């Protein structure tokens, strides 16, 4: 098993890392001090662009370039919003960062705020993350007491405040515009883009929204330089990535590894192989919203480009491992249940489409499907894809599409034999 240098998780298991004293002892807030005293905001942005850091929330948009989209001549305040509404099934990296190393997240937020000249940053945190929210709030107070947050920070005439806002328990609020609507006090409905948040976001002001993991990388980039960061990983997918390994593996958990490591290495070397040495059936490499990969793709490299080539996406790097005991129809049904439940109800194709897909999948799973239903599933997916405001509609269909593509025989078996192909469950009535 190859050893790689940990960046985000370097100190994560140190006792007391969530306290500012330990964090400072381990070199914390040095990057912020460096940025504020030695660098202009533009230089910080430049360094992040140089590092090639891409957004870790799922879309993989280069973070530095996003910052550079802010209008230069706006008379409105600029806001930074940290997307801590981590709700993608199979993803649990931000939670660990916030719970165990909250100051790293805060330092990243501070540096980014400095880089984009933001005076008020919001951390929109998922409702269920009560402990993480408590940790963040406490850490912010510690940092405020040390003078890293507040007015005239480090005597440099900079004012930055960070506000933690807890969500209301909706997956959709992880979508950036829905997050902003929710933060403004409205019902979490995504907005039509354009205008993009960088032009008109929170309260109509230019707003940058970044994922927790993205921001946690920023202090290290400032400390050690963008070129150093770009040397890790692949050419286009730089740096390390926290892979959230879950499913039928012996050692599930968060693993910080360089971009581009092979899937086999993650599952068999770090994850300790499949449970009870069963056979691998499929892998969902980037949270439930990306297409399923079959077992023969085990040697794919985990970076944005390679996975796209293999017919899937890196997404939020929530690697869900499915072994041979899994019924793919049931898996698709289970995922669809989630999307039907979480569809916000704004656009027709999404709220009616996911409902319809769920009803058909439910019927097939319970042995009441027909062969025409399989074409109907694809047809409904076609009508949803690309026709919705936000990506939730597009995220709901890959599960159905890819399982139908790779495991069509299981669906057909369900329909023909009125029982499941893999499980020993009795025949459905």
């Amino acid at each position: 098993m190859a050893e790689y240098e940990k960046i985000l998780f370097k100190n994560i298991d140190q006792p007391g890392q969530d306290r500012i004293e330990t964090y400072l002892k381990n070199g914390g807030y040095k990057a912020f001090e460096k940025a504020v005293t030695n660098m202009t905001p533009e230089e910080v942005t430049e360094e992040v662009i140089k590092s090639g850091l891409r957004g870790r929330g799922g879309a993989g948009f280069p973070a530095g370039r996003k910052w550079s989209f802010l209008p230069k001549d706006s008379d409105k305040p600029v806001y930074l919003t940290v997307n801590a509404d981590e709700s993608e099934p199979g993803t649990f990296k931000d939670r660990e960062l916030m719970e165990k190393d909250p100051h790293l997240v805060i330092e990243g937020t501070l540096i980014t705020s400095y880089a984009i000249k933001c005076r008020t940053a919001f951390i929109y945190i998922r409702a269920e993350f009560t402990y993480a929210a408590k940790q963040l709030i406490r850490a912010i107070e510690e940092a405020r007491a040390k003078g890293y947050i507040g007015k005239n920070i480090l005597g440099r005439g900079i004012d930055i405040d960070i506000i933690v806002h807890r969500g209301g328990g909706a997956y959709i609020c992880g979508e950036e515009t829905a997050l902003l609507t929710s933060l403004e006090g409205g019902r979490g409905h995504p907005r039509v883009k354009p205008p993009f948040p960088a032009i008109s976001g929170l309260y109509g002001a230019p707003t940058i929204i970044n994922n927790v993991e993205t921001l946690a990388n920023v202090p290290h980039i400032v400390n050690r330089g963008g070129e150093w960061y770009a040397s890790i990983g692949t050419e286009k997918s730089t740096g390390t990535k926290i892979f959230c390994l879950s499913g039928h593996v012996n050692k599930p958990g968060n693993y910080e590894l360089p971009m581009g490591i092979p899937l086999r290495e993650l599952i068999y070397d770090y994850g300790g192989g499949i449970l009870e040495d069963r056979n691998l059936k499929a892998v969902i490499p980037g949270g439930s919203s990306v297409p399923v990969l079959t077992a023969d793709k085990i040697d794919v490299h985990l970076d944005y480009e390679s996975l796209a080539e293999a017919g899937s996406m890196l997404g939020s790097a929530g690697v869900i491992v499915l072994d041979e005991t899994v019924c793919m129809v049931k898996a698709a049904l289970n995922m669809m249940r989630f999307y039907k439940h979480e569809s916000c109800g704004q656009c027709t194709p999404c709220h009616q489409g996911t409902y319809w897909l769920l009803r058909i999948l439910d019927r097939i799973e319970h042995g009441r499907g027909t062969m025409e239903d399989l074409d109907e599933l694809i047809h409904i997916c076609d009508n949803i894809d690309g026709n919705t405001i936000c990506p939730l509609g597009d995220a709901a269909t890959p599960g159905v599409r890819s399982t139908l593509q790779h495991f069509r025989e299981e669906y057909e078996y369900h329909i023909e034999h009125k029982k499941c192909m893999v499980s020993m469950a009795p025949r459905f009535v």
Partner: protein
Amino acid sequence: MADKISVTINDQAVEVPPGTLIIEAAKKIGVKIPTFCYDDRLRSVGACRMCLVEVEKMPKLIASCATPVAPNMVIHTESDKVKTARKGVLQFQLINHPLDCPTCDKGGECPLQDNTFLYGPTESDYKENKIRVMNREEDQKFDDFRLGPEIYYNANRCIMCFKCTRIVRDLAGEADLGVFERGASSYIGIMKELDFADEYSGNTVEYCPVGALTSRSFRYKIRDWLLKKASSVCSLCAVGCNLHVEWSRDKVYRHMARRNDEIDIGWLCDRGRYGFDITSNKDRIYKTHIRRDSSLEPCGWEEATAVAVKYLTEYIDDNRGAEIAAVGSGSLSNEEAYAIRRFFGDVVRTDYIDFQTEYAEPLTPDVLDLIGLEGKISGLENKGIYIFVDCDPASDFPVASLRIRKAISKRKARAVFITSYHKRLGYFPVTNIRVSAGSEAFALEYLHSRIQGTDFRVPEGLIEDKSKLDNLAKDIKNSDSVHIISGRAFFNHPYRAALLSSMIKLKKVCSAGLSIVPAQVNFMGVTRFGLYGSPGRSFTDILDKINSGSIKSLFVFGSNPTEEFPDRRYVIDTLRKLEFLVVVSPFMDSLTNLASLVFPLALPADYSGSFMNMEGRIQRFEAGPENIHYEMKPVWAILGEFSDVMETGNVWYHDSQVREEIAKNLTHYSNITNIPQKGLIVGLKDKKELEIKETSPEIPPKADSELPYILNWTPSVHHSGWITQKSATLMNIAGKQEAWMHPDDAAKEGVEAGQAVRIGNKETGINIKVKITNEVNKGEILILNSFEDNPVNRLLKRDEKVTFVSVGKI
């Protein structure tokens, strides 16, 4: 940025200003893009996805209702990709939509029906069961949920276009409606036990693209295609919103908006919308009545006319015409006002012609010129500071106030209320500067002195928070646009002269607009076409003359002094002294009880005519139902018949004849014969040059321990006077009367919220339920709404400026 952007839509080039939405650009060249959730007056949400179009070089289809054009866009609205997407969207809309079109009120005028016919798939692939949300409460028909007294919601039919929530939130600024749950289970709902009945709630029903929201007063009554539409004008306030009277046979079924961008932009308030059933009230008179042996009995039209004419002829022949008086109303049409002046002025030869039955003190001619809106209704969207002096825009000019709300929500304008009780414009931010009742003039004088930098001392306790006025003075100095607006309360304000004088002073110092909005629909018209009785000849003078015996007979047209005049007992006692009282009224009520002769009067839905609204716009309205069996007539027709019998020549058979005569005789209105669709603007007098006698404010008298409270009363948006009480629908929405008391007063009296108390003086009182709120001043009681069986004017005295009352337990 360029002035125009050129884009190509379906191979056709079009130039539009930057920021135009694709759907609007397409509309310009006649390309129709189907939609459910789009409304050009509301914020776009792009929710229904029906308006998806293909734009070259864009990977996905885009919502044309939410995307502005960009230079050189090439747009296709009828490509295969678009058609497939539309079919898909419609199929999604329909999977959970019930097939209850035969019983659905929207059937026949339903965008979902229309779009499905035009663009939809002929068959659905959907094989599952539809979601059905059932209402298990008793006494509910079908699956409808009660949202408020008037509006019901059927969750099954709802396609989640969010028009209703946008109307409520963005337009009215209220928070009544919201979306609950998520995804396919989402529905529109209200907070428990908070009724959905804001001022504009009916718009949600009209603009609902399916039959999800229905009106209690209309649903399950008639089909859309059986209704005929008459282009009419609302007669319940001075805004003059355009509307369609929708009727069949002899009945009006509903009012729907008739969009006029100069006035209403297609919105109606609930008073105008749900006041449609005034015409079919059970107290409506359809026949002439004559008093025989002290009781009124129906009689033939000829008999009634003969009696009236005989009486009139006697007086005319004796040259005693001046012993006859005629009283009209601000709700009569221009033609009717003119006819009354012609008949009673020229034929009967009396000068006692007036309409001011609502005011304790008649208006002087110089004040008359100040009434009306300065500028246009569309100008109320302009930026600036709006100062409302004892005025509730939501009730005094509901639909016009939407423009001010819009300006506030766009942060262009701010609204300041100088008022004795808390007022609001939805939840939009406004400033309430509270003064004690009747002391508005002090606040204005103080404001004036702050702007001028002079000294003005306000007696202690009259203004709650002077610093708000100090800030306002600062803001006024920095603002180049100020508009002072007063409304219905101005006309019966105890210190009207002082109030007006201070308003004009303030107007001059900040070159502000000054508007006084009358309550009646045609105040502007009747005062210009002959119903205004100059000092000495006004209604109060007529009452005096009746008391002194020099007026023997009174003809009342369309007004009801017993309900309107702020001293009920005095009016009734006076009218009893008359030798001959002819009442021309649509209803049997407290006034007809005193009459010798009653003629049935047509209401605006029954005949045609014209009104002049608060901005001086003359608009024509058309007759609705065919009332062939009924005998009610407009005033000019009744007087025309008198003339016919008397052979005096003033005979009119049609409202256009009256207008032709007006055009001939009044040169200022020579173009009244040709009223365009959007109305005819006649110039009001420029208010800049108006001078008024300066009057300094007076301190209102103090209450004594016997009658410790000052009485205030106000109508509400749903109930603006005795006429709205004739609408069963409106009474269902707002049929409650409340006395607002300050918590301290309530504690002193030992009164609890909701308790019925007797409010009154030694002689008389009314029983009323109490609402405890600090939205009224301490020591004041505000009565909301007045009803025929519990009239507030029973407590008022014509010669007392301020009315004091006591609160007694019952």
